[in-house]
């Protein structure tokens, strides 16, 4: 069935025989060397590992704030008893948690769903979550609340007869909820056995579990709906234990902006601040990118780009992870030998099972070529022709990258600790900034690094010891053999710093003695001598000596381990640095693409005829480009007739150009022009206007 020009339908359904698709077959089609299966396996395994790690991180990150919220929800209605409302005539305030979540709205969905499950586990099964999209009237809001509360699967595992019918034929009001709640927990009260089974795993819920209502995106709620809803709820606060949780993306003042004083006075608010998303990002980077556990790494440009998207676009860690996943997929998809990007254990098997073609492919990598050129000539030949030798070399080289990684991260952390306190932060404040510099070039050659070392040579003893202590404590993880002595070295240094006072006492007398030996000389030599003496005075104190020694120690450590990854042979297998791909597919700029295509068709068509300077029009260009370029010359309004004339002037060839033809162009030219104009209209460059007959209005001003 042709779907294009149907005038009666806009949607067309096609049923297929197959139920699902398989990533395999698509991956296979891009394969040239027959390594797709291995690559796909490696990719899927790696991604699963990373994904689970991210899940863990996510729950870790919010655990503290969730605990606080749980505590708040639990404690807010401790003294609640049924029927208490009637006795206590003074209206109470609704306990409300203002949960400030930050502006990274894309991440909130996940955060709230975890919060809901946490609350259901630990506080009460009665949790409802409201989203602004469902709540455009009070009635909707109420019905949404009630359906979520009544149809909670946690409640009705055994208690079938208690289901209050279908929500559709139930009146949605708070009084329904109240009677339901009283009914439920009064009966439970009389039969404690039942209640126990009801509570399931959470036995310590207390007699009257509070009803928690979450507002996921408070700012997007309609103010009047929210006001009415809160007012209604307040009337029942004596009869049912309600707790609100407001999800606020901006700041608490948003509540006051939404609610008038009369309403906000019904709330007893407490503020909870979610950790900022940058913290989450740091965790992700530290735990996933900066460990030797996952061999896949991001190259410097891609890393920087993803960071930029995070910092300047959305603050969304989800999007960062999305980018990471895309980078991984693209890496394994495009690089035919990427299956070597695996853990050390599998490495040897993988390399030995390489087919000659694959070996050839690896040889073609730029970094390996450079490596071969650096080898002695006798070895070069073997490397290029003898597969066996080459494979052995591969193993060595790839192992080296693995060990490099295992050394890199602990040392990098040390570097970060050392430089993060330096004024103006020449190497950056965050670990990720230092890391990004390391990826770019050999960090120890940069000016900023030298500046840091200079500044470190001037630190006071307390500061330096503090730094050393921090470094020491950061090195708790199991260290690779080469670095295993590092903690003890640091300990030794620290010891020496502690004992430094004893050393000073020994050495000072010598100095004073020397300076006392003054002989009788002439003025010139005296002066010289005094100058020398002055220099000697500057001679380092034991602390300074030790400090220099320490800094030198660190400097050599950094220089040894903090090598730029791109300087290592075969780094391409682990590092993904196709910056353009990420930029094009994740952070595209569709308008500039369209304008590029319109203003310089040569860029896309690669034809000879349209090759011209930007800004000029040639008849060979596509019609729409000609119309576009002509329209650039106009102000706000464009006369269609003039436009047509100009178009015809450009398009017609010299031979058949005569007065009559331009004045009254043939239908074909007119049709082409009409098409071009309506396409421009479709693209949003012009629109029809009624300000003047046969005119269109221009909508954009940029042209290139």
């Amino acid at each position: 069935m042709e779907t294009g020009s149907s005038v009666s339908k806009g949607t067309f359904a096609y049923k297929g025989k197959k139920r699902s698709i398989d990533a395999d077959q698509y991956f296979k089609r891009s394969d040239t060397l027959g390594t797709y299966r291995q690559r796909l396996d490696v990719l899927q395994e790696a991604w699963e590992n990373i994904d689970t790690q991210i899940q863990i991180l996510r729950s870790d990150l919010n655990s503290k704030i969730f605990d606080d919220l749980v505590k708040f929800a639990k404690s807010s209605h401790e003294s609640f008893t049924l029927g208490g409302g009637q006795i206590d005539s003074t209206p109470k305030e609704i306990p409300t948690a203002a949960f400030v979540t930050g502006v990274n709205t894309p991440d909130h969905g996940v955060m709230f769903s975890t919060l809901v499950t946490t609350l259901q586990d630990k506080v009460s099964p009665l949790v409802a979550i409201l989203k602004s999209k469902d709540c455009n009237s009070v009635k909707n809001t109420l019905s949404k609340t009630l359906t979520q509360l009544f149809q909670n699967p946690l409640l009705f595992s055994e208690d079938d007869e208690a289901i209050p019918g279908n929500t559709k034929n139930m009146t949605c009001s708070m009084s329904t909820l109240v009677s339901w709640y009283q009914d439920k927990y009064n009966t439970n009260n009389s039969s404690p056995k039942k209640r126990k089974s009801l509570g399931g795993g959470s036995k310590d819920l207390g007699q009257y579990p509070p009803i928690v209502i979450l507002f996921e995106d408070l700012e997007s709620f309609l103010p009047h709906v929210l006001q009415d809803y809160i007012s209604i709820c307040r009337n029942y606060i004596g009869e049912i234990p309600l707790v609100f949780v407001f999800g606020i993306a901006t700041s608490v003042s948003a509540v006051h902006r939404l609610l008038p004083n009369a309403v906000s006075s019904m709330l007893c608010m407490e503020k909870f601040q979610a950790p900022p998303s940058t913290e989450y990002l740091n965790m992700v980077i530290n735990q996933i990118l900066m460990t030797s556990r996952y061999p896949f790494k991001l190259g410097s440009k891609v890393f920087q780009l993803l960071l930029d998207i995070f910092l300047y676009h959305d603050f969304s860690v989800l999007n960062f992870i999305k980018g990471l996943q895309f980078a991984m997929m693209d890496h394994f998809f495009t690089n035919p030998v990427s299956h070597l990007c695996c853990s050390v254990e599998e490495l040897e098997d993988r390399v030995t099972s390489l087919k000659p073609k694959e070996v050839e492919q690896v040889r073609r990598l730029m970094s390996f070529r450079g490596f071969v050129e650096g080898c002695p000539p006798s070895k070069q030949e073997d490397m290029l022709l003898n597969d066996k030798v080459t494979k052995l070399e591969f193993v060595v080289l790839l192992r080296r990258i693995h060990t490099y990684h295992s050394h890199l991260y602990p040392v990098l952390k040390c570097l970060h600790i050392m430089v993060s306190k330096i004024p103006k932060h020449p190497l950056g404040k965050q670990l990720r900034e230092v890391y990004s510099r390391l990826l770019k070039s050999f960090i120890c050659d940069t000016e900023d690094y030298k500046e840091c070392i200079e500044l470190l040579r001037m630190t006071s003893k307390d500061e330096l010891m503090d730094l050393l202590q921090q470094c020491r404590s950061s090195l708790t993880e199991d260290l690779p053999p080469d670095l295993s002595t590092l903690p003890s070295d640091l300990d030794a240094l620290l010891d020496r710093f502690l004992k430094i006072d004893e050393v000073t006492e020994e050495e000072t007398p010598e100095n004073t003695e020397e300076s006392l030996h003054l002989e009788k000389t002439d003025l010139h030599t005296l002066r010289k001598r005094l100058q020398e003496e002055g220099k000697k005075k500057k001679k380092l104190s034991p602390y300074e000596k030790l400090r220099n020694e320490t800094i030198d120690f660190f400097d050599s450590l950094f220089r040894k381990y903090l090598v730029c990854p791109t300087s290592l042979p075969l780094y391409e297998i682990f590092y993904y640095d196709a910056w353009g791909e990420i930029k094009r597919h994740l952070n595209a700029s569709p308008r500039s693409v369209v304008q590029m295509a319109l203003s310089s068709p040569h860029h896309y068509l690669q034809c000879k005829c349209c090759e011209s300077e930007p800004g000029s029009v040639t008849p060979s260009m596509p019609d729409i480009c000609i119309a576009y370029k002509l329209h650039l010359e106009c102000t706000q309004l464009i006369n269609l007739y003039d436009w047509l004339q100009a178009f015809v002037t450009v398009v017609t060839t010299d031979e058949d150009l005569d007065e009559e033809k331009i004045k009254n162009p043939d239908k074909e030219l007119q049709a082409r022009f009409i098409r071009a104009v309506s396409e421009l209209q479709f693209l949003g460059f012009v629109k029809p206007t009624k300000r003047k007959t046969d005119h269109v209005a221009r909508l954009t001003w940029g042209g290139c």
Partner: protein
Amino acid sequence: MFINIEKPTSTCTNCWETGHSFRLCQNIPRCSACKETGHKPGSNLCPQYIEDNSNEVEAFDGKENVLSNFFPCELMVFGECFESAEQAFQLTKAVRAGDLLAAERIRAAKSALECKQIGNSVLPSTSWHQDAPMVMEEIVIEKVKQISEMKKKITQVFTDEKVFAHSVYDQFLGTGLNSTQTVHTNPKAWPGQNVMGKLLQRVAESFHASSQRTSSRNRKTTVNNASKANQKDLDGYVKKSKLFSREMKHGKMTTNSGRPRRKCVSVSFVGDDDVIGHIVDVNKKYESRKQKKRLSLQHTRKNQLKYTEDIEIIEQSDSDEENFQPSEQGDGQVAGSDVFQFKTAKKSGSMALKASEARTPKTPKSILKNSNSVSSGKRKTENVTPRKGEGTPKKGTQGKLTRKGRKPEATTPFKLRKRAEYICDDVDVDSDSSDTDSEDGESDTETSATPVPPTTPRSRRKIQEAADMPHMVEEYFDLHSQGGLSTTSDRTLAKLGTGKMDQESLNELLRRVPSKHSRECQQMYEEHRELFHKWMFYMCNGYNILLHGLGSKRTLLEDFRRSELKDLDHVVVNGYFPSLTIKHILNTITDEILEAEGTYKSPLDQVEFIKSQFETKDYRDFFLVVHNIDGVMLRPEKIQNILSLLSQIRGFHIVASIDHINAPLIWDQTKCSRYRWLWYDVTTYLPYTDETSYENSLLVQQTGSLALSSMSHVMKSLTTNAKQIFLLLAKHQLENKDSSTYLGMSLQDLYQRCREAFLVNSDLTLRAQLTEFRDHKLIKSKKFVLIKHLSFPFPEMMILKKR
């Protein structure tokens, strides 16, 4: 070009001593002409007294004299309409002085005198005494052009070889004497500088001179045409003076040059902004600033400059400068600053210029001829349409003037002359609309009045970039203060002679047009095709694909659908379909793919249902192919919200395309991240045939063939009686088709007639019939009056066919 103007010192007009003002003067009054005491100027005691010289001197003052600024007339200057020349002048003065309050009052002033009074209270800006003559000249030129009486008068006075004397007490503009005194005083002894008079003199002079030339050249010019010729020549004068002043200022010719023509006389349009620009940078101070402004606009101007031969030198230096600018177009992307610009100043003729430019490099010769013929062709058509805001009816026929090319008269090298023509010619193509100045220039460079364009001093081009920014700001407000209407021509498509085409014939025509670059497009298309499996792979991993880039992506998507999705469940949505709703999409999914029956309270409810269907049963893949997810009907936030929620369902994949340049704006941060788009640039350059076919394009006649066919289907199924009722209605409408107040046929009336024709027997049956028509959208009803709109354009034909 202007006479050296002495700065008026603060001389007392009573005793003619310097240092105090007239009001504070204690001295005996002296004659203003001879500076002697004891008599008034113009009396026969004055040594400067002469007999009435009104034969030689044309003294003018007051609102009765057309030459005077006080003469009430509707005048369009500087893009504004004024009631008198004085108002225009005083307003300019007030605006220049920055006294906007006074400016408002002047605008509101009822008489010219009031304007003058308000104007006198304004403290003029420092450069005003220099600018004033230029402003005045501008106004006078406009006045001569627009006011026929003025033209007549000025011609007459000039041919009588009289001296213009502005006999008012103004020491600067006028003679400093009243009209009798002026007449009786030796012109040399006039205390005032009579700037206004000199100005008129000059205008008249050059206007006359050129008219003389024209008439001598064009022997065939009839007497009837003389005044028109004068008009032309006057324009020519304006043009020349403008050019001249420009040269003075910038050392080069105007940039709004046109196509070369063989005929010497040409008209060029100078936009309002130019006029203002021209006035504004009179003095040196402005000069350099203007230069800077130019640089900032270089990019746009460059195009205009490019083929104007005589400024090629400048052009080169321009492009040199641009070469230094670092190109920001990494990775084939266009820099954001190029895409998102402010409005920039455009000449209204630049489109035509650009068009001609496209051909110029190849065959300059033929262009010379062709564009000539084009413009003369245009000139004829111009006669038909009255020009907007035209004061005199004469003007409309100006174009009939035929001119003949003249041989160059030695001295100036031919090439140079040609260049000058290039510049002067721009012309009719450029539209006439705002008649601030549309002028006709004699481009003969040998005329003493027009000097040879000097070479551009390079030093001017050395400009500090730092000062650009404030000028961009100024430029911005300049552009936005003037309406967009003023710079487009008045021509309409009716001139094409052929009617609008309908969609079908358009398609038919386009089918025959060979597509350009079909080979390259095919190649690109093949490259895009190779990405199919990659897309599928990414979609397996939970991403969705979004295609963007120029050209229809429909074919590509259809191709993708056929080759990759043929065995899978999928739904195709034409986002550009004008009556698409989200309900359609969701219903298609639930009814035809999930094969589930059910009613849903809201679309969100339905989404929930779809979600539960997909996520609770076994894993299945489903693809939603959306052509133009940015289509008009899919743009609302709610619909995008629903689509983005769908995209989150497990196993639910979306492949979509966007075309509108602002399409990404329909998604906010949250939706964007829900969609998990992977963007693909698939520029195809294919025509948007299907996508634009629904669009109500301006140039396409809406035939309503759809309504026609639907109607014939309905008609077939109708009973004879119903048909008769319909025909009755249709006939009634046809009878009344010329009446503009026709609302429709009232139900009562219809019922009456139907009864008479034995078509219905009760009101109820009629209503039942009408409901059927209404359901098929053949009629519309409004309140109690039944309004029937024939929804087809050729009702006669239709009805004939039915019979």
